[in-house]
C-alpha cells in the first residue's frame, strides 16, 4: 500500500510549484511516485530514494580517495576549519531553508566569514541593478490574473523553469485573463531560437551580448523617436512593432534571466531593462521580475538582507557587514586567493564556477554539505551528506517573486542522517567552544607579555 501526500512544494527552481502530489510507501520512508511536477522536479524527489545514496560523512585521504567518518568527526573538522581560518568563505545557501541559512550566519559572524550565495553566479548583477535604480515588481499571482503582455528576455523557461508558463505566465486563465494564452501576447528576446522563443508571437533574435543596445532601442521606439536601420542585429521595423505591442497591453511584465545578467554589461543591462519598464508605465501598467534559479536563492538574499542589509557577498571578516561585489564576491575572492578556507552548503560551485575558482577550492581546507555526490564534494576535504530540504525536512523558502512558502516534509531521511540545520547547530556549538579557547589562550599570552 502507498499513500498520497498532496499540496507538496517542489524544491528545485524558483517557480516553487505548490501543487505536487507525492506517493510514498506505507512506512513513510520512500518516495514511490511523483505527480504534477516537471521532469526535473520529479527527478529531485525520486533521487532521494536512490539506492546508492551516500549516508555518512566522508573525508578525503592523502591519495585522493574518500573514507567514511562519523558525524562527530565531521562536526569537529568543520568547526576547526572555520574557527582557525582568518577569512573563510561560506558559500551556497540556495538549496536550503531560511532557518538553516540563519543558523549558518551565526557561525559566520563568530568566525568572521564572507557569506555569499549562488546569486553571485546568477542574479547578482540584478541585485546590484535594483539597488541602483529600484524595481517595479509584482507577484506571480498578479501575472496569472492580469498580465496580457509577457516578455521573456534572455531566459528560457521551457527548459529552466518548465512549469512557469503553464502555471503563471502564458497559459493559465486568471481573473482578468479568462482567455488564457489566447488573450496574451508573448515576446521573446534571445540569441537562439529557444523552445520558449518557438512559442512566442514575436521573437527578436538579438545578437549575443547586444542586449543593452536593444533595450535602449526599445526605449527610443516607445517614445516614437528615430532609430538606425538595424540595432543589435534586428531591423528597426521589428523594434517599432515590438514597442507598439508592449504599449498596447493592459498589464505587462518583463521576465529576464542569465542572458542579461551574465553577458557583458551585466548590471547595466538590467538598469536599462528596469528603465524600459519605467518608461512603459507612462503608457500602461508594467512590471519586471528576475527568473530566479534555485528554489531558495531568493530566501538567502532575504535572510542576508534582514540580518546585514545586503543580499549577497556579505563580508563579516572585520566584525561588521561590508558589501562590495567584485571585491567580496566568491569568484573574485577565490581567484585572488583572499580566502583561506571554504565551506559550501546547498550548492555546487565545483560544477558551476569557472575552473580557475574551483582549483582554489580544491587547494584549501574545504567542507561540502550536500545530499548528492557532486564535483564540489569530490574535491572538498570533507563531504557531509544531509537530508533533502523540501523532501525529508520542512523549511521556509522564497519563490522568485519574494513570496515565502513553507516547504513540506514528505518522507523520513535515511536513518541517522542530520538535516542542514542540525549539522550547522552542532558546528556552531563547537565553534563557540573553540573561539572561547582561542580567546583564553590569547588573553593568557597577552598577560605573559605585559607581566
Amino acid at each position, binding site marked *: 500500500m502507498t499513500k498520497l501526500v498532496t499540496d507538496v512544494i517542489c524544491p*528545485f*527552481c524558483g517557480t516553487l510549484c505548490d501543487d505536487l502530489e507525492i506517493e510514498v510507501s506505507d512506512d513513510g520512508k520512500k518516495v514511490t511516485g511523483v505527480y504534477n511536477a516537471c*521532469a*526535473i522536479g520529479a*527527478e*529531485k524527489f525520486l*533521487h532521494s530514494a*536512490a539506492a*546508492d545514496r551516500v549516508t555518512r560523512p566522508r573525508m578525503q585521504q592523502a591519495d*585522493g580517495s574518500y573514507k567514511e567518518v562519523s558525524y562527530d568527526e565531521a562536526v569537529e573538522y568543520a568547526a576547526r576549519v572555520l574557527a582557525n581560518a582568518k577569512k573563510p568563505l561560506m558559500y551556497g545557501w540556495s538549496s536550503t531553508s531560511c532557518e538553516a541559512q540563519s543558523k549558518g550566519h551565526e557561525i559566520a559572524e563568530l568566525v568572521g566569514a564572507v557569506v555569499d550565495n549562488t546569486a*553571485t*553566479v546568477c542574479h*547578482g*548583477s540584478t541585485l*546590484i541593478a535594483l539597488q541602483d535604480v529600484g524595481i517595479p515588481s509584482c507577484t506571480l499571482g498578479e501575472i496569472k490574473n492580469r498580465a496580457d503582455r509577457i516578455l521573456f528576455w534572455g531566459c*528560457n523557461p521551457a*527548459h*529552466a523553469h518548465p512549469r512557469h508558463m503553464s502555471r503563471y505566465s502564458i497559459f493559465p486563465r486568471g481573473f482578468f485573463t479568462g482567455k488564457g494564452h489566447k488573450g496574451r501576447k508573448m515576446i521573446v528576446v534571445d540569441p*537562439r*531560437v529557444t*523552445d520558449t*522563443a518557438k512559442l512566442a508571437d514575436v521573437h527578436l*533574435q538579438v545578437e*549575443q*551580448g547586444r542586449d543593452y543596445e536593444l533595450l535602449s532601442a526599445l526605449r527610443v521606439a516607445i517614445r516614437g523617436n528615430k532609430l538606425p536601420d538595424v540595432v543589435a542585429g534586428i531591423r528597426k521595423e521589428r523594434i517599432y512593432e515590438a514597442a507598439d505591442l508592449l504599449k498596447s497591453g493592459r498589464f505587462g511584465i518583463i521576465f529576464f534571466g*542569465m*542572458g542579461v545578467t*551574465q*553577458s*557583458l554589461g*551585466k*548590471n547595466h543591462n538590467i538598469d536599462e531593462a528596469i528603465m524600459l519598464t519605467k518608461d512603459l508605465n507612462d503608457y500602461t501598467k508594467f512590471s519586471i521580475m528576475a527568473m530566479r534559479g534555485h528554489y531558495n536563492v531568493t530566501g538567502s538574499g532575504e535572510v542576508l538582507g534582514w540580518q546585514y542589509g545586503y543580499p549577497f*557577498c556579505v563580508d563579516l571578516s572585520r566584525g561588521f557587514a561590508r558589501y562590495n*561585489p*567584485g*571585491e567580496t*564576491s*566568491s*569568484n*573574485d575572492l577565490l*581567484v585572488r586567493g583572499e580566502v583561506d578556507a571554504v565551506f559550501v552548503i546547498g550548492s*555546487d560551485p*565545483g*560544477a*558551476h*564556477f*569557472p*575552473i*580557475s*575558482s*574551483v*582549483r582554489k577550492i*580544491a*587547494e584549501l581546507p574545504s567542507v561540502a554539505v550536500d545530499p*548528492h*555526490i*557532486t*564535483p564540489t564534494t*569530490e*574535491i572538498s576535504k570533507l563531504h557531509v551528506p544531509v537530508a533533502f530540504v523540501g523532501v525529508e525536512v520542512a523549511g521556509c523558502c522564497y519563490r522568485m517573486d519574494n513570496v515565502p512558502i513553507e516547504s513540506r516534509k514528505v518522507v523520513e531521511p535515511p536513518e541517522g542522517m542530520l538535516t542542514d540545520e542540525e549539522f550547522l547547530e552542532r558546528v556552531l556549538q563547537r565553534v563557540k567552544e573553540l573561539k572561547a579557547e582561542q580567546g583564553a589562550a590569547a588573553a593568557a599570552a597577552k598577560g605573559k607579555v605585559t607581566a
Partner: protein
Amino acid sequence: MPKIKLNLISGRTIQQGVSMEGGKEKPAYREACGIIEMDPADVKRLGIWVPANVRVTSPYGSVVVKAINATMGPHPGVAFIPMGPWANQVVDPNTYSTGMPTFKGTPVEVEPAEMEKVLGSIELVQSTTRKGVVK
C-alpha cells in the same frame, strides 16, 4: 586540422536539470552537458560528421566535448555548452568588478578531436584541480 572560431554561451537545458538531479557522477550528466551545440553551418565549416568529439579552447582553458547539431538554432557563429563543469573549463572568469563571471560570450576555437575522450564530471574536475594528477 581545421579550426573554427565561435562565440560560446552556456545555459540551462531540461536534460541538464534532470541529469543533474539524477546524480552528477552518472554518465547521463556527461551525455547531457559534455556536449557542444553547433549551428549546422559551423559544423560544415569544421568538416566533421556529428556527433563527433571536438576540442574547445579559449584563452581560459580547454575541454573535449561531443559536438552535435544545434537543437535551438539556427544561430551561425554561436555555440552552446549546457552549464556545468565542461562549459566552466573554458568560460571567461572575469567579473569586471561585478562578482559575476562572464559566462556568456567567450571567444573559443573548436577543432576535431576524434581520438580524445569526453571525461565524466568528477574525473574532469578532479583532473584539472588536483595537483600531481596528470590531465
